């Protein structure tokens, strides 16, 4: 019997798992996908929000600001790529500046540090490509950018090293109340074999599906709506177009789209916002991509749209009450929700992890572990080394001298590390999210055959079992000259 079972290995589930791994408790995490970070956590704006957007007094406001403040320590402790590039909310000439001042006021109530309104002159000095219509802006120096994949992986790997069991490819089919907790029924998505897991406490971190699990055990029904956001990702050649995260001032036309550098030096444009009934609908649409093309130039001019290398869509878990639902369900003893985690969910995840862990700690009276390992080291990035250090590395480990992904200059050594580390990659997308091999301007055209070869050798596994993103997604259909 597990003390604690967590449903969902996104950034929230993984952050919770890591916080709980500080305690003497048996913890497991279920996810239906083949890897951590496969839902909302992998397709979002990759922003650490300053925290001026949420309503004062809301959980969103509290956890956003707290999560933001935790990032410097976390980034150092868990080796998460993170930078405070600052954010700007642009007010254009036709827009009401009152709305901008209201945002400033909200931010101050939320205790966001360093907020101030800047005028056009200073704005242009900060961002030469800002729209000619930009009049002034709200500047938030604590806004940041992060790698959401590595943030999730870091939490999960560290949790794993500290004893948390991850059951991937494992879909939870039902949760049954028992006298001493819950019985969780699952099915393995690859083998279709059922398996049940008893647990004293269940934590629901299932993203857009959190209402499904909550409603299995509680009469106080909740509804999560999947709100689709589409994005364009531009090549690194476009990276200097803006240096801050550029938001548009929310208006009757909607929240607007942002333009931001990513932590790895691409340019990201998005998201749209359309509610969808289909919680699997991570497809982009003609309309959505058109909307981005129309909206983005409202704040940033001369966007080099010829440099688009990919587009993608993610689903945010929007809850009707418009706030996070965090805590034990009133009528389900030992069932904790971390539900409705939409923006600023990524920013808030570390604080959500802490908050849930405190609640569960209180519930189960857990003792702290003496040998908790707080540090995690990410994949060695040879491009952060000097030429001499890199040569010495290659001398000791020649695999770092073979470049597999020529666009992102990723070596065989990094790919081997991604496969061999805790909760290592088992798919092409898993390798891509860990190393960036295949994430560059050719979008894996050149490197995927080589990456497959390395994956097959290292796991080891048959090349025919290699998938892009898990069960049902085999890359190959057989051998040549076979009918």
């Amino acid at each position: 019997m597990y003390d604690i079972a967590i449903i969902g290995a996104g950034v929230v589930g993984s952050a919770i798992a890591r916080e709980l791994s500080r305690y003497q408790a048996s913890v497991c995490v279920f996810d239906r996908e083949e890897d951590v970070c496969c839902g909302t956590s992998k397709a979002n704006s990759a922003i650490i929000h300053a925290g001026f957007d949420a309503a004062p007094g809301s959980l969103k406001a509290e956890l956003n600001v707290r999560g933001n403040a935790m990032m410097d320590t976390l980034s150092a402790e868990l080796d998460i790529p993170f930078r405070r590039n600052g954010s700007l909310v642009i007010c254009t000439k036709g827009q009401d500046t009152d709305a901008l001042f209201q945002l400033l006021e909200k931010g101050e109530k939320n205790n966001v540090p360093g907020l101030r309104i800047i005028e056009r002159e200073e704005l242009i000095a900060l961002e030469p490509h800002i729209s000619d219509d930009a009049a002034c802006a709200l500047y938030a120096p604590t806004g940041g950018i992060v790698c959401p994949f590595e943030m999730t992986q870091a939490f999960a790997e560290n949790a794993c090293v500290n004893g948390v069991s991850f059951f991937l490819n494992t879909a939870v089919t039902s949760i049954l109340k028992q006298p001493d907790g819950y019985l969780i029924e699952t099915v393995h998505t690859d083998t279709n074999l059922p398996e049940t897991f008893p647990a004293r406490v269940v934590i629901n971190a299932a993203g857009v599906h959190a209402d499904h699990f909550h409603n299995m055990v509680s009469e106080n029904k909740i509804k999560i709506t999947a709100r689709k956001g589409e994005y364009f990702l531009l090549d690194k050649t476009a990276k200097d177009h803006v240096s801050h995260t550029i938001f548009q001032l929310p208006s009757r036309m909607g929240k607007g789209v942002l333009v931001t550098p990513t932590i790895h030096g691409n340019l990201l444009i998005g998201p749209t916002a359309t509610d969808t009934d289909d919680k699997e609908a991570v497809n982009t649409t003609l309309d959505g991509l058109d909307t981005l093309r129309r909206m983005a130039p409202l704040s940033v001019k001369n966007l080099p749209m010829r440099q688009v290398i990919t587009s993608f869509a993610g689903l945010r878990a929007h809850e009707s009450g418009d706030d996070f639902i965090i805590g034990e369900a009133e009528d389900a003893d030992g069932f904790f929700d971390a539900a409705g985690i939409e923006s600023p969910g990524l920013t808030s995840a570390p604080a959500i992890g802490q908050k849930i862990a405190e609640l569960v700690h209180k519930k189960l009276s857990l003792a702290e572990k003496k040998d908790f390992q707080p540090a995690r080291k990410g994949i060695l990035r040879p491009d952060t080394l000097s030429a001499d250090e890199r040569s010495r590395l290659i001398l000791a480990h020649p695999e770092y001298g073979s470049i597999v992904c020529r666009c992102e200059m990723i070596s065989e050594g990094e790919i081997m590390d991604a496969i061999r580390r805790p909760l290592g990659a088992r798919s092409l997308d898993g390798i891509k999210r860990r190393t960036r091999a295949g994430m560059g301007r050719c979008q894996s055209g050149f490197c995927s055959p080589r990456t497959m070869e390395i994956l097959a050798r290292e796991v080891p596994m048959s090349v025919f079992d290699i998938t892009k993103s898990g069960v049902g997604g085999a890359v190959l259909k057989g051998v040549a000259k076979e009918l």
Partner: protein
Amino acid sequence: MIYHDLVIIGGGPAGLAAAVSAKDNGIDDILVIERDKEPGGILNQCIHNGFGLHTFGEELTGPEYAARFIDQVLSRGITCKKNTMAVDFSVEENRKVVTAMNREDGVFQISAGAVILAMGCRERPRGALNIPGFRPAGIYSAGTAQRLVNIEGLMPGREVVILGSGDIGLIMARRMTLEGAKVKVVAELMPYSGGLKRNIVQCLDDFNIPLKLSHTVIDIEGKKRVEAVTIAQVDENGRPVPGTEERYTCDTLLLSCGLIPENELSRSAGIHINSITSGPVVSDALETSADGVFACGNVLHVHDLVDYVSQEAAAAGKNAARFLRKNKTRHQEQIELVAENGVRYTVPSFLRPAEMDDTVTVRFRVDGVYRNHTITVCYDGRPAARRKRPVMAPGEMEQVILRREELALCPDLKRIAIRIEKA
């Protein structure tokens, strides 16, 4: 830091031919850097025939064509460092430094007297095409599929839709069919094919594979693996026409929607890039904006036939040798070459009349299909030569040859325009 007179980045058809030519023009100290485990570049996966008619007067497969040049490189004793990636290139005050990396030597720097850029090109990915839909397994660029099938013997799919009628896409329509797959349709966004006429006949018509011009993919279904794609006709602005959608069940979508010269190293060295070709701006000597740095092959502009790559690379090799032999002062006098009226670009972009060879081949592509038109060469606005062509299309490279003796008759010439005119 080690030094070589000539460093050639890339051991594909361009780099190999450039090396042979430089050697034959008197340069002994040559290093070719090749990222793959064998030289030959993309030819190694082009196992179909049709290569070499111009160069060798016979039809060869890609690997055979490459082998001829590899033999020439080996027999001349030219050094080729394989499995070696050029990771940086810088030009500062005429000091040319290539930083490279491999398993044996680690990271090392090479100072070069002259450099020839021959890095080739890459395929335009799905994201750059703005095709909406899911992102499952089963979407490959045609070249990736070609490598999987021809080199690894692996089948990326069984039921195939191809978007784009570039030559690799056409070749792969035939290859996938021969290997047992069903190719259902080839859709092409433009009202004309981007590939060679002979490939349309031999790879599509001969196998009854329909080619739908002015069509594009507007949706991809399948969360984990491609299950179907929808194609639709497009209007003159490239927008889908409602009501023309056709859904094809398939497990694979191959993309052959254009090639992009790989000039990341050129850019890192500050070399000027032509926005139309995405390749370096070059003189008649194929010299880039950096003195002593030359470019040839698909890194310079995308070619249709490898024979022309070999010719161009030979010229680059010869010119690099000439540069290394005499460090004479440069004549600044230039004649601008301009693409006009139906011509998309020219390579080179300008001539240095005082230094030019007896003849200079100017290569270019047209922007649409032209029947019974002429290629007209104008000297300072005055028509100087006309050549009638029964048909010209964007998929096939065109050329005109300029003669030094003719240009010498116009001493004040500033501008040569190449244009397409009604016959």
